């Protein structure tokens, strides 16, 4: 089985789906001849032509607005927003248009499209190349939100997203684009949206994470093991719809929970996870649920590793939760 990184897995998924389904088109800034600033669309224009792999003018509103028109018309567009920090000019088209087309038209006009966009910090990117905007989109009825943590899942989840009948925000954790390597099956396979995965089994407590933070959580679990804490780590993979059953089953097993994400704390995705858990398993809990998150500040340049949760912060939260 070939070993790939996430970029290669994304590229492989796009290539396979474009071969299989002539409705699939890719559009965005620098995605054509150059193959994307992260090289995720490398070679696609060569194989499928400039009509199906389009270098667009530099406007996120335009990329998403035209992609919506294509989806409404019957295509399967996969627009790329070069950095998720640049998605906000297209916010209106995403939340007021793509997300609502099916509903507002009484089901007449579905809007199947997959918006790929690199997210997250730790790459010396400052405010505008580092943010984690998932909460905005999870908060918008009509969107699905997916974020893989490894090449195998990136490929299978991307294929599922493109085939999905609804608009999907497909967040790609860019810090681990090349760092996360793994075996990726050749050919097509899908990982259903809405299925989490237990990345590490354990009994002492449950750590919920996704994207790049999954790797930080696994590192923390290894460090905590030395202190006798046997953590279960769950990779959520799809934030909406959430795999609530896997989460609650783990909580009922371990009775303690730590939630970790890069995005700011207030109204972050962790807040929703905690609300859902206490609604369903309050009496199973032996300790308050801890949050390890980014800060409620703009994303900084120089002090980004202080801003970002690291394994140490997660370990401390784990220790406090177990000791409660």
């Amino acid at each position: 089985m070939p070993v790939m990184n996430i970029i290669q897995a994304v590229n492989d998924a796009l290539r396979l789906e474009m071969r299989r389904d002539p409705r699939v088109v890719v559009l965005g800034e620098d995605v054509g001849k150059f193959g994307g600033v992260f090289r995720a669309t490398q070679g696609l224009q060569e194989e499928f032509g400039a009509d199906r792999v389009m270098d667009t003018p530099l406007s996120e509103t335009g990329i998403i607005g035209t992609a919506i028109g294509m989806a409404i018309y019957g295509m399967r567009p996969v627009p790329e927003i070069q950095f998720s920090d640049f998605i906000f000019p297209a916010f209106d088209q995403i939340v007021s248009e793509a997300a609502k087309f099916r509903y507002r038209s009484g089901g007449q006009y579905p809007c199947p499209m997959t918006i790929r966009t690199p997210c997250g910090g730790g790459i010396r990117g400052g405010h505008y190349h580092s943010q984690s905007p998932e909460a905005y989109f999870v908060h918008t009825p009509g969107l699905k939100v997916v974020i893989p943590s490894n090449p195998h899942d990136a490929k299978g989840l991307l294929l599922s997203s493109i085939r999905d009948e609804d608009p999907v925000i497909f967040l790609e954790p860019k810090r681990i684009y090349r760092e996360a390597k793994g075996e990726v099956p050749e050919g097509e396979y899908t990982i259903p949206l809405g299925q989490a995965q237990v990345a590490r089994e354990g009994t002492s407590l449950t750590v919920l994470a996704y994207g790049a933070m999954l790797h930080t959580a696994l590192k923390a679990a290894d460090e905590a093991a030395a202190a006798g804490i046997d953590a279960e780590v769950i990779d959520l993979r799809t934030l909406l719809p959430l795999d609530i059953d896997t989460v609650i089953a783990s909580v009922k097993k371990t009775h303690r929970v730590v939630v970790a994400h890069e995005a700011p704390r207030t109204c972050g995705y962790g807040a929703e996870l905690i609300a859902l858990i206490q609604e369903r398993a309050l009496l199973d809990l032996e300790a308050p649920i801890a949050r390890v998150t980014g800060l409620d500040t703009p994303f900084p340049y120089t002090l980004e590793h202080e801003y970002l949760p690291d394994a140490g912060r997660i370990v401390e939260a784990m220790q406090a939760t177990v000791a409660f």
Partner: protein
Amino acid sequence: MATERKAAAPDVFQILDRDGKVRSDREPKVPAEDLRRLYRGMVLLRHLDERMLRLQRQGRLGFYMTSTGEEACQLGSAYALLADDWIFPSYREPGVAFWRGYALKDYICQLLGNAADPLKGRQMPVHHSVKSIHFVSISSPVGTQIPQAAGAAMAARIRGDKNAVITYFGDGATSTSDFHVGMNFAGVFRAPVVFFCRNNRWAISVPYSRQTASPTVAQKARAYGFEGVRVDGNDLLAVLVVTREALERARSGGGPTLIEAETYRVGSHSSSDDPNAYRDTQEPKEWQERDPVERFRKYLATKKAWDEEWQKQIDGEVQAEVTAALKAAEAEEKKPPIESLFEDVYADVPWHLREQRDALLGYLSRRGPIGGH
């Protein structure tokens, strides 16, 4: 004042003068029967607007928007469209939908948001969506449909389809970023799309002169690399000719066109505002001289395609049609089923929505039905 620009500027294409006399050698050959249908379509629109606005005043409709004075923009451009063409409308082109077969009863059910509303009571009145005639869903933010139309046209071109796309918007929408990006993408990709701007001079209370310092909307097309044309929007024949030309250019690979139709919003923006609060009451009266319906009537009369008797007949017909449709629509269940609230958010209803649905149904079964609407 918005009236500083006169509709009959020399570069505004016109076939019929204000008296319905042909002043151009480009009068289109339209069968008399079609001319009469077009006229009837305008008569229906005007009558419908009067009736629905009255209904709103009586509290039987939550909200309404008329297109009074802009009938020729709708019918003239609708006549130029082919069955396979796609429309990305704004909220002032119901006449395009009617011309293509949208049923009056469905229209009124949408206004009522009742159980027979094709949109299941999810949108404010006048935000129609009619897939069978490629009349794409309307949203309230002005301008968002412009890049979408460009995208649909790009898709049509990629697929090798021979159809074209038209999108409608008002002069206010030309100030949005969506207008810029839609025009820009369409120009770059030579998309088969027609941008139809109904320059009706008013965006709620703000006149054209506050939307742009550009003397015309049409000239903006030049910067995007394609043609912009000005047309007398109250002249159905002129609208028909320029729209047909633009659609043919689009279909034959000639790229997009921006049409600026000079017209006037005779009524309020919506049932929620009173134009007397912000514009000269004399202005609408001046525009009555250019009324599109009356102008077309005079033209038909010179063609011997109109007489008093026929006018009485169609007046009676449209009144009866609206009455019958209204009666049928008001006989429907007032509200869509509660379950429908949770449908079409996604293709399937996910667990969290099922949970919220069950909770709401449980509450309502204890409380009893909720009033309103």
